[in-house]
């Protein structure tokens, strides 16, 4: 069953699309077909949730966005630039991919070394590199942990550092794979505070539906390799037939009709040192 929900009124972004995926199909070398023609456009400034059950092809899809996997058919464009061998370096700067397990992403001996890895690959060095590292860590409220080895941080802190490692490359779109997995409620909230405070386009892959509703005004459902719904998150989540058909289930007692996505308001997240309002905030204590 395919349900089309119009996305126009859910769109917050403006200008040209940051991400354009057209007819993307992919089969693994063993013949297993994961994607059957995916179409998706994400506009600048949008926060979009990519929802889908396990095995829907979400991660396969994400690996196409920065050219790790090569499209079998169809095209992917990031701010007008096609994802192709010739532009991979620039594409990987534009698309910041945050992996699910921060231990996969953080492989350098200290937090600062790891955050420096991306910009160093882009050719930055010296004071310029140090400034980028510091700024990225400040954005996620982890500036005080620069010299620590990643394995001595809590899981939530590691996830935040993982976000900083790609922010340091100043991407045009932040792609997060299951950002809320394995986080306790407080770390979860701290991460959403940080993501809301960032002035960046976000594509968030998740099956954590309340988190999608909290952060993303627009949701897209990927199931069995195709996009089956695209619309306002509250509307998508309220469509019981659609949800049931694609193995998406809301937590007990959760009613999306009574809730709305959070917007970035005047109050600033406690874990972020400098935020949009320009005020300085007390850094949160290590817990």
């Amino acid at each position, binding site marked *: 069953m395919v349900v089309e929900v119009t996305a126009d009124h859910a769109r917050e972004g403006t200008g040209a699309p940051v991400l354009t995926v057209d007819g993307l199909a992919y089969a693994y070398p063993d013949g297993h077909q994961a994607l059957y023609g995916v179409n998706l456009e994400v506009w600048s400034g949008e926060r979009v949730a990519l929802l889908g059950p396990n095995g829907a092809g979400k991660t396969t899809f994400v690996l196409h966005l920065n050219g790790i996997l090569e499209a079998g058919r169809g095209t992917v464009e990031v701010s007008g630039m096609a994802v192709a061998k010739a532009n991979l370096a620039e594409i990987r700067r534009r698309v910041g*991919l945050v992996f699910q397990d921060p231990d996969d992403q953080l492989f350098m001996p200290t937090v600062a070394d790891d955050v420096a890895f991306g910009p160093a690959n882009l050719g930055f060095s010296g004071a310029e590199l140090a400034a980028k590292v510091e700024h990225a860590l400040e954005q996620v409220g982890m500036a005080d942990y620069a010299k620590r080895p990643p*394995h*001595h941080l809590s899981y939530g802190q590691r996830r935040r550092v993982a976000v900083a490692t790609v922010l340091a490359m100043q991407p045009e779109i932040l792609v997060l794979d299951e950002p809320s997995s394995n986080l306790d409620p407080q770390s979860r909230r701290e991460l959403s505070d940080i993501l809301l405070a960032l002035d960046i386009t976000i594509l968030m892959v998740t099956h954590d539906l309340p988190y999608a509703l909290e952060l993303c005004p627009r949701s897209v459902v990927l199931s069995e390799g195709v996009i089956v719904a695209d619309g306002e998150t509250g509307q998508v989540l309220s469509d019981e037939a659609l949800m049931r058909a694609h193995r998406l289930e809301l937590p007990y007692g959760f009613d999306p009709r009574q809730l709305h996505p959070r917007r970035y308001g005047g109050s600033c997240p406690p874990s972020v040192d400098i935020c949009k309002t320009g005020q300085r905030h007390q850094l949160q204590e290590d817990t």
Partner: protein
Amino acid sequence: MGAGHGHRLHFHGHSAVHRLPAQCKLLALVLFVLCVVATPRTAYWAYALDAAALGVCIAASRVPVGYLAKRMLIELPFVVFALLLPFIALGDRTVVLGVEVSAEGLEAGLSLLAKATLGVVGGLLLAATTEPRDLLAGLEGRLPRQLIQIMAMMVRYLDVTSDQMRRMRIARESRGFVARNPRHWPVLAQGAGALFVRSYERGERVHLAMVSRGYVGQLPGLVHDEATTREWVTSLALPTTAAVAAVAGWWLR
């Protein structure tokens, strides 16, 4: 997870020894150990001089002696061997505390004990005052870069892998498994195999994450401070003392 700064051997501090660049301390340790090993067997006063010099370094580092003493347990196999030497060695016999032992074995045992202890204490002091990351950064430009990167990955993932191993053991034991005899070895082997496969898969995921951030086969170096002449001179004071002791030991033999 309120874990401290470094690894289990590291003692957090800001003393003069802590502040010395890692490459200085590393070279000092290597030279010190070489000098100690080159000291003649029976020049006990030279060992005492080495120990005194090392003692000064420990005092300067403000690492508690008890902290180092506990970690010296690693030397135990050498101690056992050194204690056995007088009994198993051949040659002239001598009497110590009413027991007849080999004079040559006694000498060899004592010098082995002294040399091993000095080396171990020196190594522990380096580990206690230097973060592993700085140690690697200090080697930058002195060892092939690939080797440093492999070591850096090892330092990073050792804890992750050993934690995984611990969880697997707890899961086994929670289901009543106790390795009592060789019939249980296949279970342990399967555990090791599973760990290998998981680590291999993690390696692939790490590589994907690296590629996503623009990795094209060349890792950027670790940022480290260049040592000043003064720092080199300070850190070479220890091996110089040991060298003097060794030379004097040969001279006065």
